[in-house]
Structure formats: C-alpha cells, structure tokens
C-alpha cells in the first residue's frame, strides 16, 4: 500500500514543517520588509458601531486596548486582547479607549484624581476591575480606583489604516524619508542589539527606534494554536491506556484462577479512580471532595511511593553484588561513586573537616564537587553533544519518513 505510506509521510512532513519554518523564518516576509529609523506615525482609526447604535471613532494609541470576547472554560465570556493588525471589519470588539484614576463623580460626570473631567463620548461607559459586565457604580468607588473607559460589544464598521514614517538613508535628504502604510497583518518589529526583534504596536515606537515593517508570515501568530493543537491531540489518546489495560485484564477475567481476582480488583480500582476524579472538582469541605482527597493522599500516595521505594533495597543488594573490582574500569567507577556518595553526606565533612581551611580543597564535599563540576561536567557535555547530533539525525529521519522496517512503516 504505497499510497498509505506516502499519505502518512506527507502528513508527518507537513506537521513538522510548521515548527521548523517558525524557527528558521524571520517573523515578516523577507524582501517586502522595510527597515529604517522610526520618525513619526499616523495612527490607525477604527470606526465603531456601538451596542447602543452610536457611531464612535477611536484613534489607536497608548491606553487603547482592543479585545475580543471568547468563552473561558467555565463558560463565562472573557476578553482576549487583539493586536490592531488582527482586527478586521465586521468583528465585534470591546474597545478600551482610555484609563484614569477615580477622583469624584459630580453632576453625572466622572472627574479623575487630578480634578479633570472625563468626557464620555456616546457609546462609551466607565468600568472598574470589579464591576464585571456592568458599568462602575460611582457611589461605591474609592478615590484612586483605576477605571477604564470602554465601548463594549462594538462592531467594527471601518478601519482607516495609519502609516509609519521611516528614515532609511542619510538624514536631511527628503528621499530617505519613506512612509509605510499600515494594513491588516503588517507587523512592526523593533530591533534589538541581540536576539530576535520584538513585535510592537505602531504607536509604541520611539523616535530613533530601528524598525522592520512588513507582512507577517502568520507563523508566529499561530504559535499558541499550534501548542493547543499538540496538547489536545496528545491528550485525546487518554483512553488508550485504559483500553489496553482493560483488554489485558478482561482476558484475565475470562480465565479462572488467582489472576481473576486481581483483574476484578483492577476494574473496581478504575471505577474508584473515576469517582475520585469527578469528586475532585467539588468544593472543599464537601464529603465528595474529602473522599477524593482521601483516595489521592491516603491510597495513591502511599502505594505509589512505596512501590518506588522498593528500589532502595534493590539498589543496596545490587550494588553489594555488582560493584566488585573486576577490572580497572569498574574500580575507577567505584572510586568515583564512593567519593561522590561520601561528599553528599555530612560524613564527608567529618572525615576530612580536620584538614582545616588551608586544605579546604581536599575536603570530601569539595573533591566530590570538583569531580561533578569538572570531569563529570565534561563527560556529560560530550554525551549531550552526541545526543544532540543523534537527535538531529533522528528528527530528520522521522520527519522525512526515511525510516523503513516493520516498526515505523506499518508493515508494508
């Protein structure tokens, strides 16, 4: 079935391609990107139709925040901040036009903490952090409370895109002043001395900033969605463990004998686990929640860590049996292990502390530390360099589906 293999190979390639491109491509499309020293900007203006049917024009600048309402996991609507370039005509937004600190409220007008009147345009309302979906109630505000002027649920009916003026040649020549028009998905990046440029809003640019302005490659914008996709896709396999364990134990259940009861115990335990999981989301102090806590802390906790703790015994007997100086190599390994072990415990200090400050370097903790920091560090680094190249090789083979054989190819 060659087409199956090709289909899977193509999907694998595409899935990896996004992440690779996101890493190696710059955030804006090369070639169409303008680079220069920022001089001035013409702000973008949004024309909004507010929920009350008013029309409002908002100049996007410092203090303005555009957010879209999305549902949060509890089902409540929650604001998610949008970049100006991501806004398009027809969308419904909450627009914060400015902020101020509450001073007083007189004659239906808010005054800020410096005594200036806050003039509200039609469609704008004042909200506080605590007021939720309702406008802030001036009677309940303490002076100094931060307040926001917002137009909520406003539909974007028009956008007048602004522009940036950049200097991309010698100063003083008119030719070197270049005006770059903003548009949807035109990103503005501020360059730094080191590292990747940061994306900024056009109004955040300061005179003298080196900017790169160009169309986004969209790769960066989708990073969070990609992370979510990866997370969801991985978690959707959650039933696999349950199913494969269920099948194994189901088989045992059909057989007679001692194993049968072990399988029954397994299924009872699964049900118990599910119940504990469901009850986990009940409020504290309810009996359901304390049942869940008891299962988690009194049963899973002790049993889980006890099973792991058996390893200490195995380790003791195994190291007794195995760590014999059969060869010089094993001897070297053992000597190092002993030094590190003694250095880790207070006995290391007792054994060598009498050497005094003068011979501090010979204290066992310091010798152990030296072994770990110098030779061991170099050994580990040698190993991780190997692992890195191995990782690159493996990633390439998987990504390009070069791996043959029964394991990856699906047997065809």
């Amino acid at each position, binding site marked *: 079935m060659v087409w199956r293999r090709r289909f899977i190979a193509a999907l694998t390639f595409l899935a990896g391609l996004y992440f690779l491109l996101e*890493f*190696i*491509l*710059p*955030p804006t499309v090369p070639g169409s990107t303008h680079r220069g020293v920022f001089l001035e900007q013409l702000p973008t203006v949004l024309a909004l139709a507010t929920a009350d049917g008013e029309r409002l024009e908002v100049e996007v600048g410092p203090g303005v925040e555009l957010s879209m309402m999305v549902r949060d996991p509890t089902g409540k609507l929650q604001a998610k901040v949008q970049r100006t370039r991501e806004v398009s005509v027809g969308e419904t937004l909450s627009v914060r036009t400015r902020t101020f600190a509450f001073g007083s409220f007189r004659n239906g007008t808010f005054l800020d903490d410096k005594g200036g009147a806050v003039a509200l345009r039609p469609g704008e309302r004042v909200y506080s952090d605590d007021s939720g979906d309702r406008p802030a109630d001036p009677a309940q505000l303490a002076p100094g409370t931060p307040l926001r002027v917002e137009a909520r649920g406003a539909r974007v009916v028009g956008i007048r895109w602004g522009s940036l003026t950049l200097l991309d040649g010698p100063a003083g020549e008119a030719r070197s002043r270049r005006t770059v028009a903003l548009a949807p998905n035109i990103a503005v990046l501020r360059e730094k001395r*080191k*590292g*990747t440029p940061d994306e900024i809003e056009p109004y955040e640019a300061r005179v003298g900033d080196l900017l790169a302005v160009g169309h986004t490659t969209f790769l960066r914008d989708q990073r969070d969605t990609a992370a979510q996709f990866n997370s969801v896709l991985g978690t959707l396999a959650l039933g696999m*463990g349950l199913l*494969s*364990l269920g*099948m*194994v134990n189901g088989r045992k259940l059909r057989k007679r004998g001692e194993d049968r009861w072990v399988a029954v115990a397994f299924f009872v335990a699964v049900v118990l686990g599910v119940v504990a999981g469901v009850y986990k989301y009940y409020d504290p102090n309810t009996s359901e929640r304390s049942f869940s806590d008891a299962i988690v802390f009194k049963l899973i906790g002790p049993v889980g860590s006890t*099973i792991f703790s*058996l*390893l200490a015994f*195995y*380790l003791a*007997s*195994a*190291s007794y*049996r*195995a*760590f014999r100086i059969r060869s010089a*190599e*094993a001897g070297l*390994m053992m000597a190092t*292990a002993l030094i590190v072990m003694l250095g880790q415990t207070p006995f290391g200090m007792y054994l060598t502390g009498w050497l005094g400050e003068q011979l501090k370097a010979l204290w066992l903790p310091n010798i152990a530390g030296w072994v770990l920091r110098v030779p061991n560090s170099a050994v*580990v680094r040698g*190993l991780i*360099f*190997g*692992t890195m*190249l*191995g990782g*690159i*090789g*493996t990633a*390439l*083979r998987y990504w390009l589906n*070069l*791996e*043959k*054989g*029964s*394991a*990856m190819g699906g*047997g065809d």
Partner: protein
Amino acid sequence: MDNANWQVLLLMVVFAGLVLWKIASAKRGQGLYIRPIPGLNAIEEAVGRSAELGGPLLFHGGIADFTNVQTLAAVGILEHICKTAAKYGNRILVTTAMPVMVPIWEDVIKASFAAAGRPELASQSEVRFISPAGDLTALGTTQVLVDEKVSSCFLFGAYDYTSLLYSEGGQIAGCMQIAGTSDYYQIPFFVASCDYVVMVEELFACSAYLTREPTMLGSVVGQDYGKLFLLLLILVGVICATVFGPANPLNVYEGLLRF
C-alpha cells in the same frame, strides 16, 4: 533564541546536510565503514554459550515503544541475534511491557528466522507481554530467566530505573548478559552487573553495523562527521579563548555563537 539567526541556520544546514548526504550515499550502496564495537563479538559468544548449555536466549527491547529510536536500534540487534541463533539453533524469548510492541517483535523474529532459513525456530520462540507496569515486567522477566533456565540475556533499548531489576535478576540467575542503552543514567548499573555493555551511541552504531540498514548506517556516519565538525569548532574556540583570554570582545569567533 526565538528565531534562528544565520549562524544557527548554518550549523543546522551543516549537521542536517551531513546526515542526509550520508544516508543518500548509503542508499546508493556506497560501502560505509563502521568500526566493530567490542560488545558485538560477545553476542556470538553468548549465543554459542547458550547453545552449549541448552537454554533459550532472552531478549528485552527496552521500555519504550517504536517512536523511540533506541527501540528501532534494538529491532536491528534482535534481527542479528535471531540470525546468529539460527546458526546454533537456539530459541528466543522476548518480554515486553508494551502491548503495542508485541506484534512488532513477533514480526521481527518471524522475518529474521525465515531469512536465516530456520522458520521452525520462530514458532518455538515466544513474545511475552508481562504487565503494563514497568517494575512488574522487570520482576516477571527475572522470573522467566529462572523458570526457563535462560543462559544468555540481551537487554537493548531504552531503559529507566528498572534497568537494575533486569540486570541484577540476570546476575542472580547466572546469565551471561549483554546490555546496550543510550540512557546514560542506567549505564553504571549495566556496567556493574553485565558482562558487556554497549554504551550510549554505540547502540546505534552497533545496530547499523549489524543490519547495514542504509538509513541507520548513513545516519551514524553522518553524525560522526557532524561530531568531527563540532569538535573542530570547539578546538578553534579553545585556541581563540586561550589567545584572547576570557570574555574579550575582540574574540569575534566566540561572539559569533553568543546570543
């Protein structure tokens, strides 16, 4: 580092290019050389010893599934062990903690014995799924060693803390043990309790040497060139650092890679 700069891009192209180039030349059938790994000759010795004593061989392919490269390397090694066993007429037991891996190990055994002309050995061999829990599988495997009077034991693949349980069990049972993993935390335990240990990258080199499978082979050789390149990069860096002293901005070489 959010986006690759040109230096990183260059390194990426060099490393990936070397690997792809060598894979391509391996696929074209160019004879690529890999030096023999000391632990390898021991495989034949172990199989032979087992044939003398009359017990089966036990192979455990690590704790990971086939998305782990180490498991893929282990597949190659199992193929080789099967071919050697076909010569001496040994049967093979494979244990695993992964239900997904059972059909894959079965396929490998069937195909390898068939290729070596002893298909009847495949039906005598067995793949046992023991338990989904790692440590129960390890303890179960040691039980198998005793019950079946196994005399040679091969542990290849990815291992976690259970490595000790496998190799100590083998030692108690008096098996000749050959282990190989690239999980370096587990290597001390294998070194202490096994007769031969294939360490870290030797595992992949081993698999490539045995199977001559072009992808694995090319990849190992390509990585070798990559390592050589990295080593030279570091040596030049050491020389520059010695000449200029630490943190000297005049040392442009170091500045290139610092971000």
